[in-house]
């Protein structure tokens, strides 16, 4: 675990008076807990976006990066399945136009480029800090409908493997992870390990106050964090 990297990110955010880490920062932090994340890089110019895309390999996803835009997908700030150089240029222009139209005052830092992950079952793992019990982890079906469906379960840190297993099985949508109607069976043991790792991780990083890893694409042989949002303590 690279604690200096985390410290650097947290300190920079504090200097800039931010509690919300960018997607790129959030993923770097979460990767330190041992989770696989879809690596995301920042392009400051159109040329950089093209170079990064070629380097990562098509298809890619591009997203607006701005501390002022929280829900990126709401305003046309995300373009999926970009297959070639021309589409990178088109996406670059459309994201900028959408952001300017919808959030005229937003400070646009650039556009992130990441590999388009193989679709999987979308789940969420989250954390918040309870006033009485400290860090608490959440698991549920992920995606944009999380707050609508509220199909989630919670466990107080530290989690045992038993806790992780029961918290996954507790959600109503568990059959969706377990091969419901011919769907792919998700490797829930893999997710259990992630939950236990995250429990250990947040225990030694009290500066992390909340996070959403949403969505995580879960597969029959693993999982990958596709998007992440980490919130840090405002004053330590």
């Amino acid at each position, binding site marked *: 675990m690279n604690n200096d990297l985390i410290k650097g990110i947290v300190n920079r955010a504090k200097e800039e008076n931010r509690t*919300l880490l960018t997607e790129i920062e959030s993923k770097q932090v979460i990767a330190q807990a041992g989770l696989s994340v879809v690596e995301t890089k920042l392009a400051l110019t159109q040329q950089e976006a093209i170079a990064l895309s070629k380097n990562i390999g098509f298809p890619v996803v591009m997203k607006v990066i701005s501390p002022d835009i929280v829900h990126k997908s709401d305003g046309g700030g995300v373009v999926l399945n970009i297959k070639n150089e021309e589409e990178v240029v088109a996406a670059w222009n459309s994201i900028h136009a959408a952001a300017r139209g919808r959030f005229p005052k937003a400070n646009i830092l650039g556009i992130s480029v990441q590999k388009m992950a193989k679709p999987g079952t979308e789940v969420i793992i989250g954390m*918040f800090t*309870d*006033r*009485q019990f400290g860090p*608490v982890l959440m698991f549920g079906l992920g995606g944009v409908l999380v707050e609508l469906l509220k199909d989630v379960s919670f466990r*107080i840190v530290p989690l045992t493997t038993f806790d992780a297993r029961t918290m996954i099985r507790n959600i109503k949508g568990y059959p969706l992870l377990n091969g419901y109607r011919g769907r792919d069976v998700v490797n829930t043991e893999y997710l259990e390990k992630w939950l236990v790792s995250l429990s250990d991780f947040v225990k030694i990083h009290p500066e992390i106050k*909340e*996070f959403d890893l949403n969505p995580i694409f879960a597969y029959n042989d693993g999982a990958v964090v596709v998007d992440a949002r980490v919130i840090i303590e405002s004053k330590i």
Partner: protein
Amino acid sequence: MVTKTPVSPSNQQVMEVVFHPKSVAVFGASRDTKKESSSGWVGRLVHFGYKGKLYPINPGASEIMGLKAYPSIKAIPDEVDYAIVNLPREMVPGVVQDCVEKGVKVVHVYSAGFAETGTEEGKKLQDQVKKAITGSNTRLIGPNCIGVYCPSGGLTFSMDSSKEAGEIAFFTQTGTGGRQLVSRANARGLRFSKVVSYGNALDLGVEDFVEYSATDNETKVILLYVEGLKDGSRFFEAIRRATKVKPVIVLAAGLTESGAGAAASHTASLAGNQQVWRAFFEQTGAIQVEDFDEAIEQLVASLKIPKLTGNKVGLVGRGGGLGVITSDMCERNGLKVPRFTQEIQKILATLTAADSGSTITNPAEIGFGREGVSKTYAEGLRVVASDPQIDFVLTFLYPEMYVVEFGITNWVDGLVNAFLEVNKTMPKPMVVAFVQGQNADVFKDIGLAGEHLLRGGIACFPTIQAATKAVAKLVNYYRFIEANYE
């Protein structure tokens, strides 16, 4: 000058003083013997039979209830383990300071009017008390609490608590509710090992008491009433360790403190107070109860029912409708009521009147008739218990019918003795539930029978609902332990 660095006593050592102090000083003992004897702390301890040294403190008295009185704690020539402070709140910081200087190990502040009032003055006084003990080896219970009840140590907070020791540890923030629970549980035939009402928990709190009682051999079941926690993480870990070895029942009241507050993430916005407490119970295996009534029933179940291996119940009792209702209640609470095997049904058929149309599939309708718990009835209980599918037997009785219809009186002794006899040869745990009627005498007798059964080691409940709910929660506890640790 050579200063010796005092080694802080371990939690275990502190608790030994809390429950078994060798000497107790009482601040605020009255010169009026009649008053002190009937409602004072010296009176309470004397009548309860406290065996250690007792030092009343009152600057205006030379003797209280025949005991030599002292003008101050420092005037006591010997060591003092434990002090009870019953003085106007303004005097409390000063005497606690004196106790620290005297080297008193544990101070119980009975006086109220501190942080619980929410006033600046109250908070200031509490801070002063805290300051007095900070850095010392003197530990404090309270303020604003009735303190300790421990029959084996001769301590009590109430004149009417049983002197007999039992196996229940009970720690409570509320004093009034705590005393009420002890007295009601006593009446049911339950006995306690260690009880503490700890009030504002300025120093010693529920976390300390739970950690101690998890390994305390005198305690088989722990009951907690909590409103707020000083250290949620430590509480969580302490309960998790305790449930591994004994059932822990928790009444968590007024849980509005939890939650995330303002939410910047999906997670925080989805996290309510209820969800976190649900996680707490799911992770620790602690048994959640809603009120003191349920707490008492859960104590009965947890203490008197031997370890349950499953949730399948064999029902024995008269009355078709009652049987159906009981089955429904069992199922609703998560118990299973399987049909008895053909073989068992065959034997049961020989025990019931051939022409009565009695059910023998589960429930088994076997006579609890004019003759009370008859030989046939006793045999029926054993037969039901011998069904390999069955994990335990629940029998329900409606005594009012026998009293009113058959004119049977003095049924209590016969029934109790018969059950105690049956229980000796029951191959599986047996639970007894009564059905209440409206006859006041029968109600009283049911209470009496229940107490005797309980004292004889049989879990007995005043209603079928109470029985099924408490037993189902106990089954879940043992399942949790098995799934998690075995």
